[in-house]
């Protein structure tokens, strides 16, 4: 674990950029340099940034599929279970066998959507490491501009390629300003 001379744990090295376009170009350079543990921060979403950062495909969709399928199976279980013997009801003389399934479709559809929506929301929270009370980037005073007009990029110290001189050099080359070490605590 990297420490500063004053004994603080190093979270990352951050740099500020003058515009979204500059941040976008910098992200491509950092991606090409092979860093894995890093992130960009901006007041608004930047179109094409996921590609510039080399993020690849998000697997949130996998969780949504999982949620949707479990919703479908839950609905099938709680509908077919009673209908096939647990608690038979005669509704309009409809059959008890499989062919009563059209009556079950609305619930199957709704639970699929509901569970899928829950899965997407909670998986999204989890994948983003949320909820959390604090983020080390807030230790950097300039970073408060991120919700206003600041564009930031931070390469984290846990990245295996992280060296103080190397990262500082890279951030300077990409046009980063106010390059600084951000404390963990």
């Amino acid at each position, binding site marked *: 674990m990297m420490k500063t001379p004053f004994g603080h744990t190093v979270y990352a090295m951050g740099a500020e950029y003058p515009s979204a*376009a500059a941040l*976008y170009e910098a992200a*491509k350079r950092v991606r090409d340099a092979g860093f894995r543990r890093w992130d960009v921060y901006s007041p608004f979403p*930047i*179109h*094409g940034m996921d*590609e*510039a950062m080399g993020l690849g*495909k998000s697997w949130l*969709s996998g969780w949504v*599929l999982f949620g949707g399928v479990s919703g479908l199976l839950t609905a099938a279980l709680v509908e077919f279970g009673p209908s096939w013997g647990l608690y038979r009801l005669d509704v*309009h003389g*409809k059959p008890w066998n499989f062919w009563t399934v*059209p*009556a079950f*479709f*609305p619930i199957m559809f709704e639970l699929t959507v509901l569970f899928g929506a829950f899965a997407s929301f909670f998986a999204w929270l989890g994948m983003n490491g949320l909820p959390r009370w604090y983020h080390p980037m807030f230790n950097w005073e300039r970073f408060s501009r991120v919700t206003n007009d600041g564009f930031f990029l931070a390469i984290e110290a846990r990245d295996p390629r992280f060296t103080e001189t190397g990262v500082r050099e890279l951030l300077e080359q990409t046009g980063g300003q106010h390059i600084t070490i951000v404390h963990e605590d």
Partner: protein
Amino acid sequence: MSERSQTVPTPEGEYFESSRFAGLSFLLGLVSVITLVLCAVGAFVNPHQLSYSWLFAFAFFFTLCAGCFFWTIVHHATDAEWTVVVRRQLENIAVLLAVLALLFVPILLLRHHLYAWMDIPRGHEAALDSKRAYLNFTFFVVRAIVFLGSFIVASQLLRCLSVRQDTDGNPRFTIWMRRVSFASLPMFAFCLTFGAFDWLMSLNYRWFSTMFGVYIFAGAAGSSMSLLVLVITALRQAGYLKDVVTVEHYHIMGKWMFAFCIFWAYIGFGQYMLIWYANIPEETQFFLARNTQSWWVLSMLLVIGRFFGPFAILLLRSIKKNPHQLSIVAGWILFMQLLDMYLIVLPALHGTGVHASIWDLLSLIAVGATLGFVYLRLVPRSSLFPVRDPRLIESLKLVN
């Protein structure tokens, strides 16, 4: 801020060389003439069967062309960017509605075989008499003229304005096309809904469903998007639109196929379930004919093949981004649309079970070959995409 380098297309656009496809055009023309003559013979040999077969073929191609018209007007009304590069083909297919209006004439001539309500005199059936204000021959013809006429005028106007914009790129044409489209949206909904009521639902004048028009629309929109995928892929196979239509456009077309696959199922099930659950004989008769005997197999195939199969496949992003695989799915959806129209029209004739007939096939080929022939004549007349559309560059740079 895309990383994809864009080659700006030549200002003249790309032109379809009809000489390269003279053989295909001749073949389609020949097949069209032969099958049309055969169908004319069929109208005397077996008029009852032929009239239903012809209506089935007409309904299939009408939904495809009307669907392409729908996508054109939605493009203008929503100011969409992505559609620009594929819009000319939508316009080309939509103007085929004029040919379909000619092919509607046999339905009028054979009307007594198709629509029983035309032959039942007043006073025989109270249920029918109460519908006479709507279901009478004069009004039927007037409506057909209004519906097909509106489609023809609007689709011709849109294509004409779009082609004229190719010469000077005046944004004025875009504004005009938007105006035509806004006027066309309610017209389209009205004409397609009541067209479906008139030509398909009134095959059984005792049956009615308020969902029927929407059901036809859902099938039309999804299958015409599939047709567009196939047409664009065919043009790319022939060496056109290579730098113009990208995987991103395929991705969006795939998403629309997916969306309308779900919408079709939603509407189809919405119509089915209310009727099935309420279990009222005057409503259930439609599904009773289609869910029993050998029709049951085809109905199940439709439910699985039109919804469950494509739904599961089109969930995958990789399929939507692969032109070849997406085209296979698109072909399958077109086949399912064919089956859908078959299941709407033919059980009205063969209530006791599936009765495949050579006239079904001949009618289908006759209408299809005629439209294909006209389409091949139409394509070379203008650039394959609107070269001077103000939003062409945005469309070329599409990322989603």
